[in-house]
């Protein structure tokens, strides 16, 4: 067996080693680029270019944009309601009162165990009609005072638009998740904060309002921001109730034109464009809170 003469590492000239480390540094720098964002931006530009130059794509976009108002309105209103519901339920989840605790926990467990699409159907087609029946009963009970043909007797489920039902359903569904976010935030504040506030004579609610919640909410802002993004995406579910958001417009357009590829690709990119912007916003918020957190401990 003879010795093979392989090129040895020392054989490489010095200047080439310098070149390689420069290359290495270049590769390192490239590796840190947000390539995913560039890829999305590239395809986004491609689609935008199509939307402006191709007649088909501009027709699709014009159609989709008819629904953008409904999508944004649904998301904003349902999210605001969900925050309110979630905060109340979250406070219930940390309550010492067993009745309040159990009601809040029942709500959270039921909501988190049923798919949002199913909740949407149940609320739109079961709960709302039942509630309207109740309203009619109440109207009949009040007949001696208000007259037999009062407003409550005449109320019908059809009086509640599907947009309203969708918003209620999304708010109740997301409220269950946000309740847990708020609960986690409240419980992450050290016990000493509540004790210090109580020892100064504050009531439980005063301590919550002035000491615990301001710190807890600051801490849960990033997850709440992510929930907002998720809500924007899940607002597409309202299309199953025929509410004309961008998804519903896309379905109608595709069904009529058979342009499934172009329509649904455009729809996907429209959502992606909105969620990317929002997630960059959440990232910025997170960084700001972190730097403030360092300043304030």
């Amino acid at each position, binding site marked *: 067996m003879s010795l093979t003469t392989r090129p040895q590492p020392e054989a490489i000239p010095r200047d080439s080693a310098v070149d390689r480390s420069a290359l290495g540094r270049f590769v390192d720098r490239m590796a840190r680029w947000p390539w995913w964002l560039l890829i999305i931006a590239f395809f986004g530009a491609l689609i935008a270019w199509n939307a402006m130059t191709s007649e088909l794509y501009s027709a699709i976009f014009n159609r989709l944009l008819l629904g953008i108002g409904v999508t944004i309105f649904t998301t904003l209103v349902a999210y605001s309601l969900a925050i309110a519901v979630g905060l109340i339920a979250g406070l219930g989840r940390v309550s010492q009162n067993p009745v309040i605790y159990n009601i809040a926990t029942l709500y959270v467990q039921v909501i988190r165990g049923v798919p949002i699409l199913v909740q949407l159907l149940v609320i739109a087609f079961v709960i709302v009609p039942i509630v309207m029946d109740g309203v009619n009963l109440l109207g009949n009970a009040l007949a001696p005072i208000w007259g037999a043909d009062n407003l409550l007797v005449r109320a019908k489920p059809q009086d509640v638009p599907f947009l309203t039902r969708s918003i209620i359903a999304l708010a109740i569904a997301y409220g269950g998740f946000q309740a847990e976010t708020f609960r986690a935030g409240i419980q992450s504040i*050290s016990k*000493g*904060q509540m*004790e*210090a*506030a*109580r*020892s*100064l*004579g*504050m*009531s439980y609610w*005063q301590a919550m309002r*002035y*000491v615990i919640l*301001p*710190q807890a909410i*600051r801490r849960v802002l990033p997850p709440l921001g992510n929930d907002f993004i998720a809500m924007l995406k899940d607002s597409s579910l309202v299309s199953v109730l025929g509410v004309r958001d961008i998804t519903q417009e896309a379905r109608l357009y595709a069904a009529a034109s058979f342009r499934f590829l172009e329509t649904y690709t455009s729809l996907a990119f429209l959502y992606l464009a909105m969620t990317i912007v929002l997630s960059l916003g959440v990232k910025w918020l997170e960084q700001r809170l972190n730097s403030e957190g360092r*300043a*304030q*401990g």
Partner: protein
Amino acid sequence: MQRDEPMIVIKHLVKQFGSLRAVNDVSLTVGRGSVTVIIGPSGSGKSTVLRCINHLETPTSGEIWVDGIHLTHDAKHINAVRAEVGMVFQQFNLFPHLTVLENVTLAQRVVRKRSEAEARDIAMQQLTRVGIPEKANAYPSQLSGGQQQRVAIARALAMNPKIMLFDEPTSALDPEMIKEVLDVMLELARSGMTMVVVTHEMGFARKAADEIVFMDRGRIVEQGPPEVFFANPREERARAFLNQILR
């Protein structure tokens, strides 16, 4: 209320945590304007006694009167008592999202219903008293431990309490910061404040205490004025503890 009536009366206090009896039949009387220092090994129930006085712990049995008010489970009584009893914690427990000034004014405004200007005046007086008026607009995280603890004392004092409770106020501090906090506490003791202090600082106990209470395993083992207690402890357990601590 008579002047000679004691400020705090504790009768047969028992506090049970699960199977652990942290406080076992403790009776104690604290006179107006007196300084009581509770010492003893860790886990002896000293902090629990202190926390029962303002009902941060609910007693399992026994009775407590604070300034003539019977502490029951009635929430109204509890909040009334707490507003009169200041408490300083081992971990300071300042509110990190508020400035020093806001820390000291918050409860004044919310509980005492003082105006913003009045609360600020009182806060600045108390911050001056503890020696850090210049930090009024800083956030707690920008202060040293000793400074934070002095703000915590100012925060409690701003409520004009009749009693101050100190739960190991120097135990979480770096050694060089202990003195600045003890100096504030000494000044407070001399001003005639009724104080109950749980501490391992025997120097403070000697200088400031009117009464030393030595606890072990949930009971008061020995009690007396510091000159008697430190010179000649009667109980074997107290003697052993002092030997450990004083070396």
